[in-house]
């Protein structure tokens, strides 16, 4: 997959959330999207997902112009937002069955395995409303494992997961990249992003202020991040 973002802008009234973003992303990359609150990370993620219509600019996926309307004709786009996108009064299995049907997937027999892989094998027939935030996030991982997206957008996944859940998520994201998928992850967790991702993009007030592929010594990255993230728990020791 080849994703091109050309002069992408989005405004909410008079406030610009994104301003003339230019990016080119390719299959196999795991891109960390960082920036302070209000930088435009979630807006960019949702614009890439086709949920938000940009004010100006365009997104090209494999050379084809992408809008929300064309989403159904393009490679699958996944959005992993912890705790979101699951029906509370459906069971875990019913949620997975519904989305498999909507995506035209035939993997219904694999639902049990997918739930087992994320440690929810005993929770398949429970309503999602009984799940904790971390369990919902695990269920979302199972959902996207089954749906197999070409572009996976992840919005701040670390806040709700326990240690096992984080390992599970990172193993899954690594698998997506290795199998030729593209991952774009918005996060505030600098250490995790630096360890997992192959490229970092930093947004500030809707503009890209840093875009670099990972190097063995990534001083420029830590220096750029240091402007808005105080050194602490989220940093590598």
């Amino acid at each position, binding site marked *: 997959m080849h994703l091109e973002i050309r002069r992408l802008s989005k405004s909410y009234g008079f406030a610009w959330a994104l301003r003339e973003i230019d990016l080119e992303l390719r299959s196999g990359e795991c891109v960390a999207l960082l920036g302070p609150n209000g930088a435009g990370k979630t807006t960019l993620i*949702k614009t890439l*997902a*086709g*949920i938000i*219509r940009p004010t100006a600019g365009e997104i090209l996926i494999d050379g084809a112009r992408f809008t*929300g*309307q064309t*989403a*159904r*004709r393009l490679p*699958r*786009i*996944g*959005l992993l*937002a912890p*705790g*979101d*996108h*699951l*029906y*509370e*009064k*459906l069971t875990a299995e*019913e949620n997975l069955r*519904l*989305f498999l*049907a*909507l*995506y*035209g997937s035939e993997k219904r027999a694999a639902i049990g395995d997918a739930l087992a892989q994320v440690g929810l094998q005993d929770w398949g027939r429970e*309503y999602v409303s009984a799940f904790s935030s971390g369990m919902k996030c695990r269920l979302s991982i199972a959902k996207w494992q089954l749906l197999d997206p070409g572009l996976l957008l992840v919005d701040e996944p670390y806040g709700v997961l326990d240690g096992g859940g984080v390992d599970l998520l990172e193993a899954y994201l690594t698998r997506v990249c290795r199998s030729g998928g593209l991952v774009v992850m918005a996060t505030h967790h600098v250490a995790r992003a630096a360890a997992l991702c192959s490229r970092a993009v930093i947004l500030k007030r809707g503009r890209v202020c840093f875009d670099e592929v990972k190097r063995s010594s990534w001083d420029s990255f830590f220096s750029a991040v240091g402007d808005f993230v105080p050194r602490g728990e989220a940093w590598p020791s």
Partner: protein
Amino acid sequence: MAFLKQTAWLLRKDLLLELRRRESLLAMFFFGVLLLFIFNFALDIERTKATEMAPGLLWLAVVFCGTLGMMQLFQPERENRCLEALLISPIDRATIFLSKSCFNLLLMALVELVVFPLYWILFGVTAWDRLPLVFLYGLLGTVGFCVLGTLFSALTLSARGREILLPLLILPLIIPVVLATIRGMDAILRNAEFAESLPWLNMLIAFDVIFLTAGILVFEWVVES
């Protein structure tokens, strides 16, 4: 084929959720019954007049119950941002519109199945033989109401004060549907010639088709906005 299958899956999901949440149907049902009782206590109507007034009073109850249901229509999609999940899935967005319209229609049809005979009982209307025709006619009107209501329910999804905004938007626009339904029902209850109700029937079908087509075409833009 995939379009119909996806619509069926979404409709199944809505029915399952309603069965478990029991929010819309029960509220609509009790509201409809309550309205009829209030009409019955407040209006001292003779039996002959009750037949004449049936279309107007019944539709008043239907419109109020329907508006109540429409406020809850996208509630499951609002929770956990499930609408986003549907929007990024590779389905035609018209499937969301069609499934919601069908779901809405089913709920309202169930309410009408109770409310219409109850009116006959409460007000002592004797024309029981005309009740099925009145119901069928009412159902045609309900199609237009549901289709338009679904569209505006989606449009006001993230609007502030949507509980006030939604009826304000729907009610003026459904006047042609209400008018055609009431006049048609009236002709049936008066046992008038079929030719008398035909223009209203044509008008009703035309509005249903126009609203349905327009809904399918514009829903994509409505949910994105």
